[in-house]
C-alpha cells in the first residue's frame, strides 16, 4: 500500500512537471539542488538497503547454513539441507502452510465483505455514525497482543466467558476446549482476527466510498435501479482502486498473522502459522538461525509471489495513465 501511494505521488509529480521543463532538466540544477536531492534520495535508499535489503539477503544466505547464533565462526554451509528437512521431516510445516491459506481465504470471504457492508451503511450518514465508526475501528487501534489476551479470556475453557455462559466447562460432561482442540482453535482465533480485520476494511472502504461521486448513485436511482442494483453495478465498480488495496492488505495480513495467535495459544496444536514457526526456531535458546531463515525465505517467496503481480499491474496502469 505504501509503495503504491508513494509511487503514485512520484508519478503524478513527474507528469505535472514534464510539459514545463522536459529537456535538460538535470543540467539546470544548482549544486544546492543536487545536495538536497542526494540527501533526499540517499538517506531513504541507504535506510532501505541497511534495514530491508541487507537483512533479507543475509536471511537468504543464512538459510543455506547451520548456525546457533553464537560467534560468526560457527556458521556452517550445508546447502539445501534446511529446505529438505522443512519439506520432509518438519511435521508442523505443512499444517502451517495450510493454516496460512485458510487464514487468507477466511479473511477474504467474511470480514472483508462485512467491512464493505458496514462502510456502505455508515456512508449513508445514519444516526450515531461516528460512534459506530469508532466502535468498529477500535479493534484495529488496540494492539493485537491485547486482542489476543481479551479473546483468551473469552475462550478460556475452564472459566472463559463462552463456556461459563453455556455451561460447556465441565470436563466430565460437555467440554468445549476452544484453545486446545485443533478442530476448534483455528476457527476461534479466526473469529478474533476477523473482528479486527472487519474494522480495518470498513475504514478503507469508507474512504473509498467518500470518493465515489454521489451523482452516480442519483443517476442510477433515476434510471430505476434498486439499492442492490445500484451498489452492484455502479458503486462497486467505482470502488475498483480501493479493492486492489483491500486485496493486498488482506494478503499481507494473512501472511504476517502472528500476534493474536501467539498470545492465544503460542501457535501450536492446531494454530501453527509460518510466522510462528520462524519465531520458534530463531528466538530463544533454540537459535536454529539457519533453519528459521529457511522458513523465512519460504514466507518471503510466497509474499513476493503475491506482491510482484500486484506491483506490475499497478505500475502498468499508471504508465498508461
Amino acid at each position, binding site marked *: 500500500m505504501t509503495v503504491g501511494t508513494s509511487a503514485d505521488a512520484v508519478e503524478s509529480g513527474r507528469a505535472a512537471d514534464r510539459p514545463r521543463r522536459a529537456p535538460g532538466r538535470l543540467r539546470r540544477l544548482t549544486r544546492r539542488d543536487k545536495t538536497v536531492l542526494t540527501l533526499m534520495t540517499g538517506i531513504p535508499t541507504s535506510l532501505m538497503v541497511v534495514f530491508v535489503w541487507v537483512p533479507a539477503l543475509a536471511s537468504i544466505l543464512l538459510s543455506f547454513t547451520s548456525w546457533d*547464533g553464537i560467534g560468526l565462526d560457527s556458521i556452517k554451509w550445508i546447502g539445501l539441507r534446511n529446505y529438505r528437512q522443512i519439506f520432509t521431516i518438519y511435521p508442523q510445516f505443512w499444517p502451517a502452510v495450510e493454516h496460512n491459506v485458510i487464514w487468507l481465504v477466511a479473511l477474504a470471504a467474511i470480514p472483508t465483505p462485512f467491512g464493505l457492508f458496514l462502510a456502505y451503511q455508515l456512508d449513508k450518514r445514519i444516526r450515531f455514525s461516528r460512534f459506530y465508526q469508532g466502535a468498529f475501528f477500535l479493534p484495529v487501534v488496540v494492539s493485537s497482543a491485547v486482542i489476543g489476551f481479551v479473546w483468551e479470556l473469552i475462550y478460556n475453557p475452564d472459566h472463559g466467558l463462552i463456556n461459563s455462559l453455556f455451561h460447556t466447562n465441565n*470436563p466430565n460432561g460437555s467440554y468445549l476446549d476452544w484453545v486446545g482442540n485443533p478442530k476448534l482453535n483455528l476457527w476461534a482465533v479466526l473469529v478474533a482476527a476477523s473482528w479486527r480485520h472487519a474494522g480495518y476494511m470498513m475504514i478503507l472502504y469508507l474512504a473509498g466510498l467518500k470518493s465515489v461521486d454521489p451523482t452516480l448513485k442519483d443517476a442510477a436511482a433515476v434510471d430505476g435501479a434498486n439499492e442492490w442494483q445500484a451498489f452492484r453495478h455502479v458503486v462497486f465498480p467505482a470502488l475498483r482502486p480501493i479493492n486492489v488495496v483491500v486485496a493486498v492488505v488482506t494478503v499481507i495480513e494473512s501472511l504476517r498473522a502472528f500476534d493474536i495467535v501467539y498470545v492465544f495459544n503460542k501457535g501450536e*496444536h492446531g494454530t501453527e502459522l509460518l510466522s510462528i514457526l520462524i519465531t520458534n*526456531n530463531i528466538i530463544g*535458546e533454540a537459535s536454529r538461525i539457519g533453519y528459521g531463515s529457511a522458513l523465512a525465505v519460504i514466507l518471503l517467496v510466497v509474499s513476493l509471489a503475491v506482491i510482484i503481480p500486484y506491483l506490475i499491474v499497478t505500475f502498468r496502469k499508471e504508465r498508461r495513465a
Partner: protein
Amino acid sequence: MSPESPRVYQGPTVDRRMMLKGLLGAAGVAALPALAACSSSSSSSPSSTGAASGTVSLGSNASDAVPKKAFQAVYDAFQAKNAGIKVQVNTKDHDTFQEQINSYLQATPDDVFTWFAGYRMQYFAAKGLSNKINDVWDAIGNNFPQSVHDLSKGQDGNYYFVPIYYYPWAVFYRKSVFQAHNYTVPTDWNSFISLCQKMKSDGLIPIAFGDSDKWPAMGTFDYLNMRTNGYQFHMDLMHGKAAWTDAKVKAAFAHWTEILPYHQEGYIGRKWEDAAQSLLAKKAGMYLLGTFVAQQFTNPDDLADLDFFAFPAIDPQWAQDSVEAPVDGFMLSKSPKNRAAAVKLLEFIGSADGEGAYLKVDNSYDALVNGYDTSGYNAIQKASATLFGAAQHVSQFMDRDANPAFTSTVMQPQLQAYLQNPGSIDSILNQIEQQKQAIYNS
C-alpha cells in the same frame, strides 16, 4: 549448531551416576548447626583475594514479586557483610530473559547472571560464554555434597555454576481428600492405577493436568521414562545418544497411554494454574508438578493440607531411585568488569547464609548446602528434603537436560501431538528421531 557440538553431549553421565552419595546423609538430617556455622565461615575467610570493592552488576530473571524480593534479601545480606561492594541488579521478565539469553551473553552481559543447572548451563560454558569459577569453588566446595559439585561443572570438568536452591517434582494431593476416601499413597504402578480407578468411581478427576504451556508434559515423560527405563537411559535419550524409536521409549509411552484416560479432560488448552485450582478445589485427586504448585495454595489451611509422594515405581529394577529436581543458581559472564567482587558475591550465594537469606523470604524451595538448618522449613520443604535425600539420581528437567533447540522446536509440539492422538505414537516417535538426528548432528 556448531560442528563440535556433538562432543558436548558426552560429558556428565558417568559422574552423575555416583551422584548424591554425600547428600543421603546430609540433607535429610535436620539441623546440624555446628556444620552450618563452620561452612558459612569457611566461605568468606580463606579466599579473601585482596580488597574486592566497587559495583557488581547482576542480570536477574526473577521478575515475579516474591522471588525478586527474596533475591534482593540475598544481595542486601551480602552488601551488609561486604561494605565496599554494591550489587546493581537488572531484572528482566522471566521468559524474556530466557529468550534473549544468547544475544545477551554475547553482547555486554552483567557480571553475574541467574541461570539453571544441567545441559542448559554446560552449553554456554562450552560455547565460552561464561567464566570458569574454580576459585569460587575452592572456597565454597566444602559447603556442598558431591552431587551438587557434579551439577555445577561444565563438560570440561571446570566449575561454572553456583546453585542457590532446588525444587523437586512429585505427585501432589490433599491429605483431607485421601483421608475422606481412605486412599493410601501408591508406591508401585498397579496400586497407582487402581487408585486412579477408585478416584474416578468416586467422582474425582484422578490426575489434574494442564499442558497449555507445553512443559508440564515433559515432566510427566521424564518420570515415566526414568521409572520405566532407569536414569542412565533417560540421560542417554536426553543427550541424543539413545534412539527415540527404541522399544524402551515406546514402553514408557505405553504406560502414559495407560493412565491418559485418568487425566483431566481438555488438558491441551489448560494452564497449569487452572489445573492446580482443580486440585485446590478438591475436584482432582492428584497432580504431578514441581513444588511451586504450592503458590496456588494461598490459604494457609489449604497449604497445610497439601502433601506429595514420589512418582510410583514402574520397573522394580529402578524403583523410585531418581528424582526430578531442577536446580537454579548463578553464573559468571565471559568477561566480568569486576571479577573480584563478583567472586565474593558468588561465594556468599554458595553459603548457608546466602541460601538462607533467600529461603527466609521465599519458602517455595529447599537449600542445597550441607547441614542447612531446616528447622525453619515448612512441611513441603521438609518433605522435599526427604525426597531429594532418598534419591540416587537427580535429573534436571527435559528442557534443562537436553538440547534446547530440540526440546522447544521438536519435543514440545510432538508431546502435544501425542497427547492429542496417543494412537499415533509410532509415527510420532519416528518423526522425533528424524528431527533429533537433524538437530543433534547439525
